[in-house]
């Protein structure tokens, strides 16, 4: 359910030089990737591309205060949101763990959000509980962007994944994509699977049985007509795909024997890349541990650091669109 905050409801537009487009994201929360239409996703990706190509970053957040409320630790997401805010000339308040907040004294998330929404112009929230961002959006008088709520949603990661795939493949339709690793608990894999219904994407799900994609997501993929299949090793699929999206398997979930088995079947090495498509690109939400051998970093197939760098541009686009009725990018 999308919500528009405050005075943002009145026919907003975005000035993109030649064209004027309705900015339906002005004043809006971004809690779940499912809240966004295909047109809105394409629009965010288009604004992201313009921001990345621009020689100078527009001061779209001048006089705006962004609250970065990270109730659990984060490196890339938190710093990329901070970088995005500061590059757009905005200011940051917030915290990077709940150790320094009144949550430790027993304050509810609801009270915390009510207060912070009176201090800031927009709230970025990461929280370990699933649905925390939706609750925050319900209570906040200002727009809320979800930076990850437990194992549920991480919509800005999904948007940066889509932007990166489009950037390296020049299209989003007609692609074969392998999701590898922890498909049971990994929210990036869950969010990405949910978005596949909007594009012509063939999915290969590569995971140990214990970490395969949950039934409810597979049922949804079936219902939405997304083509997908299950696989036990990277070798089975790597020559057939345009993108291989690696995720980390938490080895503490397995015995040492199973750990060795997983390492052999779900860790990517340079030897895997002998008979792959030339356009194959490897993505990973990071941090990686040992699931991608460092030798791959030097190959043209590695694209995970570019992917991480794109996080700043996608978040710039979201912040700028949420707080600017009219956004000049020319």
């Amino acid at each position, binding site marked *: 359910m999308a919500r528009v905050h405050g005075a943002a409801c009145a026919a907003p537009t975005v000035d993109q030089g030649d064209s004027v487009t309705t900015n339906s994201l002005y004043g809006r929360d971004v809690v779940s990737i499912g809240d966004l239409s295909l047109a809105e996703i394409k629009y965010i990706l288009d604004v992201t591309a313009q921001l990345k190509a621009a020689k100078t970053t527009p001061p779209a957040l001048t006089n705006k205060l962004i609250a970065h409320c990270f109730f659990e630790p984060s490196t890339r997401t938190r710093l990329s949101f901070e970088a995005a805010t500061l590059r757009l000339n905005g200011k940051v308040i917030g915290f990077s763990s709940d150790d320094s907040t009144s949550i430790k004294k027993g304050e509810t998330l609801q009270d915390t959000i009510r207060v912070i929404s009176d201090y800031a112009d927009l709230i970025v929230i990461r929280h370990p509980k699933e649905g925390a961002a939706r609750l925050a959006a319900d209570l906040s008088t200002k727009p809320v962007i979800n930076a990850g709520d437990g194992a*549920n949603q991480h919509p800005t990661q999904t948007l940066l994944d889509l932007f990166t795939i489009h950037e390296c493949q020049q299209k989003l339709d007609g692609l074969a994509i392998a999701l590898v690793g922890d498909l049971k608990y990994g929210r990036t894999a869950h969010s990405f699977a949910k978005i596949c219904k909007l594009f012509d994407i063939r999915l290969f799900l590569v995971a140990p049985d214990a970490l395969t994609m949950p039934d409810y997501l597979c049922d949804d993929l079936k219902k939405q007509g997304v083509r997908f299949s299950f696989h036990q090793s990277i070798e089975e699929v790597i020559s057939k795909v345009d993108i291989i999206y690696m995720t980390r398997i938490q080895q503490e979930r397995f015995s040492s024997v199973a750990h060795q088995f997983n390492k052999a079947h779900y860790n990517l090495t340079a030897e895997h890349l002998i008979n792959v498509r030339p356009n194959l690109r490897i993505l990973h939400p990071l941090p990686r541990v040992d699931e991608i051998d460092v030798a791959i970093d030097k190959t043209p197939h590695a694209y995970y650091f570019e992917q991480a760098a794109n996080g700043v541009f996608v978040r710039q686009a979201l912040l700028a669109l949420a707080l600017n009725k009219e956004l000049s990018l020319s």
Partner: protein
Amino acid sequence: MSKTLSVSAIQNGTVIDHIPVGQALKIIHLLKLLETNQCVTVGFRLLSRRMKLKDLIKIEDYVLTEEEANKITVFAQEATINVIKNFTVKEKIIARMPKTIEGVFICPNAACITHVEPMESYFYIEEQGKAVKLNCRYCEKPFDRNQVKVTI
């Protein structure tokens, strides 16, 4: 077979009949019937021509609201809800499955924010043939109706 009623008739009130076996207790909690002063009679696993076995609830001196009747359909899609006056059926309540339901169920996902904040649960209801799915608005997980417990 004896013609004696397994559950005695009521003079005035509401009879919820054709409840799938095992769902009557959930409906009692759903309608908070244990917290009212009404006399409630319940039958479990009664013989039924239509369903073979069924549950049944009779509530004396109380007529269900449309909203209450609609909530029942989550557990008993094909329940018959009759308003009784002077031992005869005065009216049938036509219940429709609600699109959403608030504050009634406990989200089965232990990691859901609804378990740690002072707040009401909220589910979107989706009919898939005879199955009923409840989608938590917060954690976004779908559940079968048999997975969810009613808030007591």
